[in-house]
């Protein structure tokens, strides 16, 4: 019993749970373990996966970002509108990144410089940005003029769709940033003890602004890919995304109290979220039930986080 507990609550506990779940699902759910379904599954988690990269940094430094869903929708909107207006997809992409980065910058400055609680700040920007998305499109979906835009999501490289590659590259990049750079270590240090980090010479407010800005930029990327996949800019896209992303991170062992995070964990967390949804679709479970399951997964994630901290605390 104790060794089982150690296995489940230890460093690799999540990977074990994931492997188990994957094996069970592969054996029991028809059509699950096929190339087509696997690619579809990965496609479906692209938005969550990409945004989770930077949400991990946010949570690891004891912050929080609720505005990601709105930012994804807004920057997707902007990408479509800007490329329609200028006739250039590249300009559209740049506009989306600038918009995403700007929202992140505002979040960061308000939180770090004016010392407003991150939850409140991003709750506010979440609504403001969603509002801006609705205003700019008059509440309607905006269609894409240039079919080239669809290629972002449709094109394939070595048989794997581009968005999956983008997600993979971001996983690698942010994994490197977290584990192998001063930026990553400082993020974790701030999460562990912000005041001690400041006194140890970490420029805490600048770090926080950077983290939020990166979050915004990454939301921009996710927004573009999402718009391309749904072939339009939708002001109501990605509602509730923030919750799925935070669930995935927490499920992946990122501590809500800050100071603990691992890219591998987050990837597994994202995949668990994806698999749950995918399996429910394959089993033809009604969408209404999926909300319940998603909520249950979040609860389970937080419970696991709690058990894990208790287990870690006992060692001390």
């Amino acid at each position, binding site marked *: 019993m104790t060794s089982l507990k150690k296995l489940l609550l230890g460093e690799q506990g999540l990977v074990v749970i994931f492997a188990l779940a994957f094996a069970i699902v592969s054996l029991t759910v028809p059509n699950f373990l096929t190339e087509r379904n696997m690619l579809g599954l990965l496609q479906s988690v692209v938005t969550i996966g990409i945004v989770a990269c930077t949400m991990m940094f946010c949570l690891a430094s004891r912050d929080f970002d609720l505005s990601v869903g709105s930012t994804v929708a807004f920057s997707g909107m902007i990408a479509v509108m800007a490329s329609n207006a200028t006739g250039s997809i590249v300009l559209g992409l740049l506009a989306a990144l600038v918009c995403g980065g700007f929202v992140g910058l505002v979040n960061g400055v308000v939180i770090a410089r004016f010392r407003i609680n991150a939850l409140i700040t991003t709750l506010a920007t979440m609504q403001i940005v969603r509002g801006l998305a609705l205003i700019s499109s008059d509440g309607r979906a905006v269609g894409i003029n240039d079919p080239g835009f669809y290629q972002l999501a449709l094109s394939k490289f070595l048989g794997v769709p581009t968005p999956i590659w983008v997600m993979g590259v971001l996983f690698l990049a942010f994994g490197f940033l977290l584990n*192998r750079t*001063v*930026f990553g270590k400082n993020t*974790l*240090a701030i999460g*562990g003890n912000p*005041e*001690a980090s*400041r*006194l140890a010479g970490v420029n805490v407010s600048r770090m926080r602004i950077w983290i939020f800005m990166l979050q915004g930029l990454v939301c921009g990327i996710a927004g573009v890919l999402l718009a391309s996949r749904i072939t339009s800019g939708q002001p109501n896209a990605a509602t509730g995304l923030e919750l799925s992303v935070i669930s995935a991170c927490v499920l992946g062992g990122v501590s809500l109290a800050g100071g603990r995070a691992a890219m591998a964990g987050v990837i597994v967390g994202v995949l668990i979220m994806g698999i749950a949804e995918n399996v429910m679709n394959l089993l033809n479970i009604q969408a209404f039930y999926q909300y319940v399951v998603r909520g249950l997964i979040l609860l389970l994630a937080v419970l696991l986080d709690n058990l894990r901290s208790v287990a870690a605390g006992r060692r001390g």
Partner: protein
Amino acid sequence: MQDFLEFKSISKGYPGVQALSDVSFSVRKGTVHGLMGENGAGKSTLIRVLSGDQAGDTGEIRIGGEQQLYKSVRDAFQAGVIVIHQELQLVAELTVAENLWLGRFPAKAGVLDRRKLIGVVTEKLADMGIDVDPAAKVASLSIGERQMVEIAKAVMVDARVIALDEPTSSLSSRESEILFSLIDRLRANGTVILYVSHRLDEIFRLCDSLTVLRDGKLAAHHSDISQVTRDQVIAEMVGREIANIWGWRGRPRGATRLQVNSLAGPKLPHPVNFDVREGEILGFFGLIGAGRSEMARLLYGADARSQGTVTVDGTTVTADSPVHSIRAGIVLCPEDRKLDGIIQGRSIEENMAISSRRHFSPFGILNPTKEGELAETFISKLRVRTPSRKQDIINLSGGNQQKVILGRWLSEQGVKVLLIDEPTRGIDVGAKSEIYEILYELAAQGMAIIVISSELPEIMGITDRIVVMCEGRIAAEIERSDFDERRILAAALPDISNANDLPIQQVQSR
């Protein structure tokens, strides 16, 4: 008198450590019993077992001859055992009276009986000689007053055994005296007091009897404290004789290293001036709230300055943030290690390298090999006791945490001025002298060191010169050859006329 509180072969193990093994001793009714030991000796574990917070693996506790079988803090509370921890358990936004009644408010048909609520408390407080307004919010009280309220809470429920864990660690000496007279009164009423402290003076001033723990075992039990000497107790605590824990020796002093001119800030309104020379250890002494730590934080750039210049080796430092100070060679080991020093949840290695890694991380990319070497170097140099450099810093004892923070700065390049605030607070005797040795060595290498301490023996023992602060101003500056306990204390104490409205906590709480 017969034994009232009895510990019978208490043992308690945690994974990897035997925190207590076969500890037995007893305490008579109406006495104050001291409990001493180095960090990790098992005092806290024993208190936890007594408080019902954790159950012992074996052994039993008897109170008044009855075996206690309680399983939780609540059960212990019902049995009349109350532990007062360093972190006080009061609700800041409620009044003193409400706190004292918390959990069992007097009410008639669900409506608060305000008269009883205030009345009983007023009476009790007067009985105990505690001068606190029952209608005041706890948030408005000083730490010392809060401690009194906490004790009053124990008296309200007729506690039979009160354990105090390092009660004076954040009190001024005047507040401590008030606490001591309250303890004297409780003793006279027949309460058993278990008094945990690192401070020998207090133990000898207060206690009737004493138990010393070492490595989880009973090292000594003295049923009459007047039969032992301090040196004996220290030897029992460390298990060896410590001839001279200060070990100060003279060293050449060079040119002026640090010069501080009219430094002031919101929490230190009166400008201060002083300088420190190469190889000098300058002490800052004062009561809590005298402005010593505020001075250090301003000097380090941790708090914003309103005026003043700081010069290191003749170059003016634009220190408006710790980042700038570190680059200019000024570093700070903060007063509150837990709050401001260590980064919980991260390893020793990361805690050490957090600042110095910028020297060997090109483009912000880490060099794990170098970082590991650095950690190993300072772990052995500073003799940090740990199984591995990957160990979470929270698992280390206070002395070892302090060493890791020293390692953080020793691994930096070009440190010229070391500010160290309360270098040995909560650190046991053995580790203390090791930390002093490190300071002497650094000074010998030419560093200018500023030691801030509220322990007079320490500051007199290890510094070359003392600056005494009082109510935010520099009150005296004394060379080692002129060190005199009375003179320093006299300078640190405010005029007797305003002694009653000492701004003790206002300045300290930030």
